[in-house]
């Protein structure tokens, strides 16, 4: 056993020293595996970035009410009578002045041209009252002023301003027959609201023919249990046909929306990995052939076939592992934090930052090592079978 470990040590050392003579072939293997890993991580960075934004939106201490089974505010319609009943629900916080901290909001989708290619995309327009801002404690006006709540005026989320053409402060945009003036830019850092535009609820209701009700009803609650109290209150009243949940849970339920992207990314990565395995097998066979005499010499002086096998596997895993690290670093440096957009639960554009978590980077490196193990196996067997006779034959 000890002699085997010694042999292995010697073989591994030899492998590393001899890598220099096959530098280009080794670099090829490393780079090709790095590209596969970077591709996989590209897809994964989309899903985790989107998840991060969804999970970063909303509070535990805000209750959200939408119409029963609507799942999203886009589908939801709450008649004014429902809103009046909800205002009497238990557990809703009050401001210092004694005002109920509630926010009835109207959500509509509007088409707006994207800066990137000029094509129309679905933009969220939210009609709000002033307490919508009170409820989003991270809300900050970056420039300009709040909209007049009875005028056709908009404030634009920072990300929406970056994404859409013509949504700059001071400009006007047109939805249907109405011109809207952009009077400010706001942020609610890390949330989906940054991809929205907000206006007073009254002009949105009247100009989009939604005077009969609202889309969503939000209420600041005294504690997290109060959300359940409101849900019980709604269940007990047959006039209330609604679903109640915390704002945090509402946005968390949209996280699954990118699962197709995960499967797609993995499918592509596995197909590309097959190509990389084939390339690695070739490079390693080449390496074994180059070192035939060296390996045969080792066998002739008493090294076992196993040490040759592990030496070749070591080379494969070393190169693949380096490829994995290179691919993961490239993906992290180029992608982490880059901006992207997708469709959220409301079928409107949500801008988010691509994000790579440690667990994904490790997954990438592990896939690289797996490519190395698969690519190394057959060449390693050939290495183990080299006959000591090759020395004299050469």
């Amino acid at each position, binding site marked *: 056993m000890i002699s085997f470990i010694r042999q292995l040590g010697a073989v591994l050392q030899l492998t590393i020293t001899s890598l220099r003579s096959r530098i280009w072939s080794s670099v090829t293997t490393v780079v090709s595996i790095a590209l*596969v890993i970077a*591709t996989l991580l590209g897809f994964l960075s989309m899903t985790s970035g989107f998840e991060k934004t969804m999970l970063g939106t909303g509070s535990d201490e805000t209750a959200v009410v939408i119409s029963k*089974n609507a799942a999203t505010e886009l589908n939801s319609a709450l008649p004014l009578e429902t809103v009046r009943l909800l205002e009497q629900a238990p557990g809703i916080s009050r401001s210092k002045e004694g005002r109920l901290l509630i926010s009835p909001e109207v959500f509509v*989708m*509007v088409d707006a041209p994207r800066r990137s290619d000029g094509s129309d995309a679905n933009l969220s327009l939210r009609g709000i009252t002033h307490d919508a801002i009170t409820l989003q404690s991270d809300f900050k006006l970056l420039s300009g002023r709040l909209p007049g709540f009875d005028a056709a005026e908009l404030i634009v989320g920072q990300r929406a301003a970056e994404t859409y053409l013509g949504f700059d402060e001071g400009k006007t945009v047109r939805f249907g027959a109405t011109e809207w003036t952009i009077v400010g830019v706001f942020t609610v850092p890390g949330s989906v609201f940054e991809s929205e535009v907000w206006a007073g609820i009254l002009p949105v209701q009247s100009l989009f023919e939604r005077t009969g009700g609202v889309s969503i009803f939000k209420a600041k609650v005294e504690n997290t249990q109060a959300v359940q109290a409101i849900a019980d209150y709604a269940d007990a009243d047959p006039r209330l046909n609604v679903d109640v949940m915390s704002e945090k849970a509402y946005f968390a339920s949209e996280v699954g929306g990118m699962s197709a992207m995960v499967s797609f990314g993995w499918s592509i990565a596995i197909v590309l990995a097959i190509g990389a395995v084939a390339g690695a097998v070739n490079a390693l066979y080449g390496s074994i052939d180059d070192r035939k005499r060296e390996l045969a010499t080792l066998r002739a002086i008493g090294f076992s076939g196993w040490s040759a096998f592990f030496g070749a596997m070591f080379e494969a895993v070393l190169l693949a592992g380096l490829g994995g690290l290179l691919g993961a670093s490239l993906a992290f440096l180029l992608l982490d934090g880059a901006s992207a957009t997708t469709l959220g639960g409301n079928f409107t554009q949500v801008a988010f930052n691509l994000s790579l978590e440690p667990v994904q980077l490790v997954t990438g490196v592990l896939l690289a090592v797996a490519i190395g193990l698969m690519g190394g196996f057959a060449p390693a067997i050939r290495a183990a079978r080299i006959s000591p006779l090759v020395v004299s034959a050469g």
Partner: protein
Amino acid sequence: MTEFSLIISGLARKKLRTALLLVSVFIAFFVFAVLAAFQHSLARGQTSGETRLIAANKISFTQSLPVSYSNRIRTLPGVKEVSHAQWFGGYVNDPRNAVVAYAVDPEPFLNINSDMLLDRDARESFLGRRDSLLVGRDLADEHGWSLGQQIPLSTTIWRRTDGSYTWPVVIRSIFEAGEDATPTNTAFMHFEYFDDARAFTQDRVGTILIETESSDLNATVVSAVDEFFANSSAEVKTVPEAAFAAAFVTQRANVGFIVVAVSVAGLVTVLLIVGNTMAGAIRERRSEIAVLKTLGFTEARIGRIVLGETLLLSIIGGMLGLGAAWLLIEAAREADPFFATLYMTGPVALAGIGMMLALGTATGAGPAIGAMRVDVITALRRA
């Protein structure tokens, strides 16, 4: 010996090596072709030969249009048939049990969708009663529905005047996929039956389907419709049906960027692998090349043989990749209506062939020059 047989024997020298290189090339072209075909089919939606258009509110398709627009569009020249369609947001018993359902103007709708396989009796029984539901074969099988069965079709969106969210409907006809693989996972109800009971947005519809006399008239009809309603309370934007669907995909992700990035990653990988392996293969053949030179082979001829090997390699691997992509695309179109417009198009195939030639030349150029420069004396002495 001809040059071609020398090329073949060069590739046959190490069969395993050649096979592995073919696998790498195959994968790169397979991935490229599938992705490019997907992107191309999305882009092609704008100009397809289809005669079906969709008109929706210019603000967004989620804003409604007056139902009367249908009849006004019908009077425009070049328009053959018009039916409104309202997304129902349907489900049965449990919202997780979603049913893709629309409320449509029944007779014009069937006229436009003449590719649905529906016999005369089935057509008549769907049209005859206002609470009829027309169901696709896949959907009927999925839920185990049979003709004459009454089901409670609920909606996540529409409230009825009686406060409920459920329309009782009777399955009166089942349609099968036509020749162009109509999706059969959908259901259609009578618009009037739906509209009479709903509590809000009455007499309004989400989209209006338009069939034109011929696809040549599409552009004319699009501008005629859009201009007709310009400056009205509800302005209209009309697009080809395929473009309407494509917008959902292109908004979900930057498809163009993904296609380019992944294809480049795949192709650069094979460029490295093939280039490096071929360089090694030529190095190991220096003495043979020297022999060829002594036999009187010109440098140009030797260069051609080496280049021929890499070109042949990338053309065979690439063609197999395109072929496999074509098979996958055909199968996907059969299997899932989502891929109904997915085709391996001419431009994608041409781009693929162009890249095969580029790959073959790029990977062969270095080794070919190396082979041409082989010095007979040194190479033979070493051997």
